[in-house]
């Protein structure tokens, strides 16, 4: 689901599918800015029917990587 949501942005930046790894930092390489990152999280919350503690989540290192986002939702219930 995450990959589907980010695919248009990755296409626009010329990033290939194999670059979509858990270590990919969405903010650092410019796939998303902080506004778009919050957009993404709230869209995922709606799609998954759950809420995460956003500020607390961002205190963790790697929170803005693909793996960080997945972990956020796995541990966010």
């Amino acid at each position, binding site marked *: 689901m995450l990959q589907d*949501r*980010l695919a*248009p*942005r990755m296409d*626009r*930046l*010329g990033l290939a599918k194999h670059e979509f790894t858990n270590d990919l930092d969405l903010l650092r390489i*410019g796939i998303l*800015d*902080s*506004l*778009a*990152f*919050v*957009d*993404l999280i*709230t*869209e995922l919350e709606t799609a998954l029917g759950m*809420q995460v503690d*956003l*500020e607390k989540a*961002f*205190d963790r290192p790697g*929170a*803005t990587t693909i793996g960080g986002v997945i972990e956020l939702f796995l541990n966010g219930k």
Partner: protein
Amino acid sequence: MSTLHPFDPYNVFQAAAVKYADRIALRIGEREWSYRELETQAAAIAGWCERNTPTRARIAVFGKKELAAYAGILGILRSGRSYVPLHPDHPPVRWRSVLEQSGSAACILPSNVGSDIAEELKIPILSDWSNEAHVPPILGQEAYVMFTSGSTGGPKGVPVPRNNVAAYLEHMLTRYSFTPEDRFSQLFELTFDLSVHDLFVCWGSGACLCVPEDDSALRMSAYVEANAITSWFSVPSLAALMRRMRSLRAGALPSLKHSFFCGEALSWDVANSWREAASNSTVVNLYGPTEATIAITEFELTSTNSQRSGTVPLGRAIGRNKAKCIPDTEPNEGELWLSGPQVTEGYLGRSEETANAFKQLPEGNELWYATGDRVRVDPDGIFHFIGRKDDQAKVLGHRVEPAEVDGLLAPVVSPANVLTLPFVKGDITRLVTFIDMELDTAPLMEHLRANLPAYMVPERIVCVGAFPTTAHGKLDRATLISMVVDEQC
């Protein structure tokens, strides 16, 4: 002969440095510097400026939120010179334009960023001032030159005299009860004139300026709590982002005593959420274009003037400034004109644009700045923002002329085939560029990123077969916007 204004920006810092020498003036992340330490740095930088640049020269200061940038600004002002802030993350073509237009005589470079351009332009560089001899404060005339987006290509500079800044500081430091115990947020980039409020209202109060170590907008309530921030100043978009993150719970920001917003329209929705979160704080909406020095009108929100929807009024002119509505369609609606001690005299090297924006009224010889903002003035003399006369947009508080973005694509796409528009999603304004032909947009985005600061780069470029038109044959902007506003990611 110029005289020293008691609220001159360097003078207010100097007075605090004498009175509160050992109090903390600056905190960046976990590191702190006292007023005495900061003044020592400024005196050394001023010494170098005095020995290496002409009197009252302009000096560029490259810097993010780091000691060198703050000490650099203070040192330049102490030397009676004027600072020109440059952001290391902005594209080099923009640095060059700013350096050339401002005629900067020297550069303060904390790191090597920008050194190649400074060397090419043959201007002296200061990166280590540890052994420089100090000089006492020297009287100056101009405080800084800030560059904003220009509709005719490239950034345009607004020189701001020190007395204009002093007029603003005089109002803020007498109107609000700041104390040396206060702790100010420092969220604005130094290339944004609202940062001048952060620095000099704080230091004029003998207070501590708290700079977040990283620029993450995603941990703002934690930053307020960890730094015990008492005075907050940001664009409304940041508050909107915090609201979206559910950080504005009732009572969530108890340390705040003063909250100021400026740079773009503040919605009542966001303002009311902020008031609930910062329940011990006054909340003030400020308004002011760079040409009128930081902010020139204010509106304090109270329990009796609160509304549920729409945007918070701009309020009334502060201090000895004047605001006037020049009516157009309705008697109380029209363009907002500003006059008074904070209004500057024009743009750097742009006489035509200066003449178009800085004017006199038939009944007097005062200089007025025609803002391009449309307002309504109510029976109490309070100004309410309606919109713009032109296409100018505000993105995260930064002024953006869409024509500047479109113009950069001109080598590839004719101006008739490209249209950059602002749109609002989640209470936050963003940009999107439409092109009425099929093109590979990746190289165009690359080109924009290489030439524009991040806030001016559109969120995306959308290719449409042809621009939609209304029944009257006009360009249908609403339909274009609707194509992106509901789209995910």
